[in-house]
């Protein structure tokens, strides 16, 4: 059986300039932050980022790696707005494709099903089609003749997701209340990489939770990374909740350009081990 274990840096090396990358999770929830941090350590640029956006989008914007964001929102949940995404938008540094949340889901579903589009009502009458003039409508061929939005497939080069458990072959499991859209991200991508809190034996997957929690099968996954606290500072319940204090620190530093280089030096300039030990030190200092 293929052992797909690899390092976060090896995953990051799969991503090259100009690629479209999908990032799983939702807002500040179960984001593959360790993989995003690995991406920050590479010289890659001009990415199109497809995300139910949170601090993943903010950090990639801060590092100047983003050419375009495809999104329905960017939020840190307990903090409504991400300062770096706001700054990049207000400075005109990035292009955006702004979709309704449901359109976004339809676009990933179309890609997952190898369909050119899926019809939806979401988006009609709003400014979404005005800002994306490439969008077309489609008319029902049945008696109702309803005109609907034809949401084009959102095909992705590489998807990054973080789950709670995975085996070395790529069978992966979420243990929290919401799978988000991580399976769709993987199905919409040419290559998919999953990090997890823990790599376990296949038999342990069904011991930890009901079979319905097995969101990804190994046919959907190209690489597996063991990344304990790999979603930090977003939630990965039940393993841990959001690190609200650290998230507030990120926001405070992101809002203040004088403080930002210090944040980068301390947390983002070393490897993942350094990141986690600095996070522990930050926790002790704040306690």
């Amino acid at each position, binding site marked *: 059986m293929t052992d797909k274990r690899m390092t976060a840096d090896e995953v990051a090396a799969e991503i090259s300039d100009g690629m479209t990358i999908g990032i799983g999770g*939702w807002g500040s929830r179960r984001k593959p932050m360790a993989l995003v941090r690995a991406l920050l350590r590479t010289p890659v640029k001009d990415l199109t980022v497809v995300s*139910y*956006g949170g601090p993943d989008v903010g950090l990639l914007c801060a590092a100047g790696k983003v050419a375009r964001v495809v*999104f*329905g*929102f*960017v*939020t840190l949940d307990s903090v*409504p*707005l991400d300062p770096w*995404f*706001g700054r990049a*938008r*207000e*400075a*005109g540094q990035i292009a955006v494709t*702004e*979709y*309704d*949340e*449901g*359109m976004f*889901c339809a676009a990933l*579903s179309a890609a997952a099903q190898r369909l050119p589009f899926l019809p*939806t*009502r*979401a*988006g*009609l*009458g*709003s*400014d*979404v089609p*005005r*800002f994306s003039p490439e969008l077309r409508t489609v008319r029902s061929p049945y008696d109702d003749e*309803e*005109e609907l939005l034809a949401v084009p497939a959102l095909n992705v080069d590489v998807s990054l997701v973080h789950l709670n458990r995975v085996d070395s072959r790529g069978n992966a499991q979420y243990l929290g*209340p*919401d*799978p*988000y*859209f991580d399976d*769709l991200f993987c199905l919409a991508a040419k290559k998919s990489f999953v990090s997890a809190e823990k790599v376990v034996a296949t038999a342990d997957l069904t011991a930890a939770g009901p079979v319905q929690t097995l969101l990804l099968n190994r046919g959907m996954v190209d690489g597996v990374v063991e990344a304990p606290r790999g979603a930090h500072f977003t939630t990965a319940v039940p393993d841990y909740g959001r690190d609200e204090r650290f998230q507030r620190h990120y926001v405070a530093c992101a809002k203040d350009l004088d403080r930002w280089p210090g944040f980068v030096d301390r947390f983002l300039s070393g490897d993942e081990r350094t990141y986690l030990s600095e996070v522990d030190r930050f926790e002790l200092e704040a306690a």
Partner: protein
Amino acid sequence: MNVSRAEIVVGALAELFRGDGPIVASPIGFLPTLGARLARLTFEPDLLLSDGEAYLVDVDGEIEGWQPYRKMLEVIVPHGRRHVVMGASQIDRWGNQNISAIGDHARPAKQLLGVRGAPGNTANHRTSYWIPRHSKRAFVDAVDVVSGVGYDNAAKAGLRFHDVYRVVTNLGVFDFATPSHSMRAVSLHPGVTAEEVAAATSFELDCSGASVTPEPTAEQLRLIREVLDPKSLRDKEVPA
């Protein structure tokens, strides 16, 4: 009994759900959540309450259903048995709402949340808005980004399930039940004048037929004060 402005507002937010029956109430924010729970505890016992995350919960917090985001977007919203109460950074006379960005969308003066689920919500099911500070900045002639669809745009797009129901603010309750679907006042909160509303609204807003927003009943006041919000957090959002 001395009833605060915040308590009047919670009562008005509860009234949004009157007659809804067993549909999913999705109140966004603290006061709309109080309103939905008050409705659930009094006149709409069958209302389904979302916890804002993955569960449907009874008023005592007991989980009665699973509703992760994927199910929300693929099933609950398109199926239409839902009533959302969203916020609005801007709203216009036809009920177009903006939570996306202020200014030119290509390079906004202020990036807000993004359109989120507003286009899909307004295309599919009943939508109301809660605006804690009624002001000319919020009540504008034209929104910068149409996130939630108003009546003029819904008619052009042929949205057959469009239903922007009401707007509740710190000054009053408003709807679109005029022949042209322009906004009008249903009621003004006790002590609020039509002049006050006009001074806080960029467009002409008809207050001629407005009644006075009713006070919550004694039982509702007890529930607000003793059960739902004993710490009076409501007063932080709507000062007396």
